[in-house]
């Protein structure tokens, strides 16, 4: 090979190496930027109380900001989400929302309190709206939004061990009750007792992590990864992190199911409410489907559990029937995010179970590859829920034989998303 004929090969090799290096270095640069290595970053911190479930994970117990510089978090500043907290609030802390339609239609309003504004179906949609509302109320701009729920607080304390806050020992066993006690007994509308408690707790956790040895830091990283997968920790940092940390709707084509619940008026009940999602679908010979979705709630609390529940299913779904076993309002069928949404308001009596069942048809979602049919169902878990039970049943077209199936059956207790797959011929 002469030097002239080898030149294009060398150039191509250099270009390929450069592209590979860029593809490796750019995410690293983004991550370093997100961690404040190039200049300080300020994140909006949202603490969601998932014992009172809301669409994006829980009631907005506290919000605030935290700075990150060279990977070190500093300047944690929290405040309660009541309307009186915000100096710039000229409208009583009321925020105008433009959806989702299920909420605005059912409740007949586009105006919500800041602390109740997480009505969007996922954190990725809520986070930029929350950041904009926060800027409107406080004048402060942020580089991203981080959400933690109370289950995350418990898991972090399991990882770090107990910390002392105001001479009290806080462990994973008592942290949720302690936060609720401080909140319930706070004397001022701005709940400075609560924010002082949470700020000290946050600073103690940060100090513990900073002082940790490498094994403890690895353990913490592993905990954070698990919390992120289970959507107890959510991070919205556009351009800085790969997708998968922001709880976005995962509509990947095929069949899809995402049940999103909000507890309005049911108190701090949700760690004591068990959910079972039962999904049965019948694939017709032409590939269309008829599906039965039953959501069962078991309320172990001593008072009514009131839930506004929305099932997000593939676009084009036609609701045939809705049945309720208890007091309920609905169904309301709307569209959002390229999906069909079916909503109801359900009351579950104390120490009892209640369910809602929807029957609907779907256009063909089944794929095919040669002689094989391929049915995929993605069941997305709502942020803030610790776990739920999933039952699935797939009835294939006449004469079809199963070649392979996964996650089909009853009693799958899961704390994350589930991919159901059936291949048949």
């Amino acid at each position: 090979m002469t030097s002239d004929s080898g030149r294009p090969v060398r150039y191509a090799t250099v270009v390929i190496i450069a592209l590979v290096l860029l593809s490796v270095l750019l995410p690293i640069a983004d991550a370093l930027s997100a961690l404040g290595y190039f200049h300080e970053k300020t994140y909006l911190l949202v603490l969601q109380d998932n014992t009172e479930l809301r669409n994006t994970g829980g009631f907005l117990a506290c919000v605030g900001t935290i700075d990150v510089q060279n990977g070190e978090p500093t300047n944690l500043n929290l405040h309660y989400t009541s309307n009186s907290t915000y100096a710039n609030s000229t409208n009583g802390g009321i925020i105008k929302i433009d959806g989702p339609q299920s909420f605005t239609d059912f409740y007949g309003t586009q105006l919500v309190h800041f602390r109740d504004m997480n009505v969007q179906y996922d954190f990725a949609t809520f986070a930029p709206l929350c950041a904009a509302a926060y800027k409107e109320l406080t004048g402060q701009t942020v580089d991203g939004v981080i959400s933690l729920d109370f289950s995350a607080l418990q898991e972090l304390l399991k990882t770090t061990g107990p910390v002392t806050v105001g001479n009290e020992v806080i462990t994973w066993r008592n942290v949720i009750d302690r936060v609720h006690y401080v909140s319930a007994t706070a004397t001022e509308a701005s709940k400075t007792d609560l924010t002082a408690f949470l700020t000290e707790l946050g600073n103690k956790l940060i100090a513990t992590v900073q002082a940790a040895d490498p094994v403890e830091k690895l353990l913490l990283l592993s905990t954070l990864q698990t919390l992120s997968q289970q959507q107890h920790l959510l991070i919205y940092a556009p351009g800085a992190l790969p997708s998968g940390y922001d709880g976005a709707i995962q509509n990947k084509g095929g069949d899809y199911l995402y049940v999103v619940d909000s507890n309005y008026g049911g108190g701090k009940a949700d760690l004591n409410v068990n959910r079972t999602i039962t999904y049965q679908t019948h694939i017709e010979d032409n590939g269309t489907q008829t599906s039965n979705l039953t959501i069962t709630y078991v309320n172990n609390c001593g008072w009514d559990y009131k839930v506004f529940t929305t099932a997000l299913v593939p676009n084009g779904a036609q609701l045939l029937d809705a049945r309720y076993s208890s007091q309920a309002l609905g169904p309301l069928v709307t569209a959002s995010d390229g999906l069909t949404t079916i909503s109801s308001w359900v009351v579950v009596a104390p120490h009892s179970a209640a369910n809602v069942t929807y029957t609907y048809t779907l256009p063909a979602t089944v794929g095919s590859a040669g002689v094989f049919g391929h049915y995929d169902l993605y069941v997305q878990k709502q942020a803030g829920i610790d776990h739920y039970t999933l039952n699935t049943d797939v009835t294939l077209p006449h004469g079809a034989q199963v070649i392979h199936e996964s996650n089909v059956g009853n009693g799958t207790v899961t704390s994350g998303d589930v991919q159901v797959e059936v291949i048949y011929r």
Partner: protein
Amino acid sequence: MKRRSKAIGTSAIILIAVLLTAVVLFATLQTDLTTESARNEQNPLYVQSQSIVQVRLGKSATANNVTFRVQNVMNGTDPEARQVWATYDTDHYAPLNPVQGSTYVIINATVASAINGTSPFRYSDVVCVGNDGRSYYANYAVGNASCSASLAAERLKPGGACSVYVAFSVPDDVAPTKIVYTASNPAISVDLV
């Protein structure tokens, strides 16, 4: 040819050695992480203070400015506890349904100022000691209106006793052995067994 075979053989041995070392290191790290996780998840061991007043269930003890008596110990399903939690609307904030693998131990204690003035008292200074030798710290406390006000203010008014219910979350397989009021000197230790 022979030299090349020898080099390949040496490389293979080095590669296997590196892989084995990596596997061993990874396994050690996993063990360390599991041990660390289990250690941090547990509550701290109870360390008895040098000076204590020891009493039995139902008996009062006074130390510093506080008189302390544990009347009764129950679990979260006890009708008395349920009644108290429902009466003071506490269950909407702290439902007595523990996380999986845990149970609530609830004590009914009477506390009073032992002097002719107010005395500091925090229910979070009351610790439940399990038969595993570990300290379990208070989760929540409930009392009647005036008692709740005293608890929130962390001061006991002179005259009259405050009847308070304090809840502790403990593992299912752990039984409470003593309740200790740790803020006084000497500490007051109530034996439950």
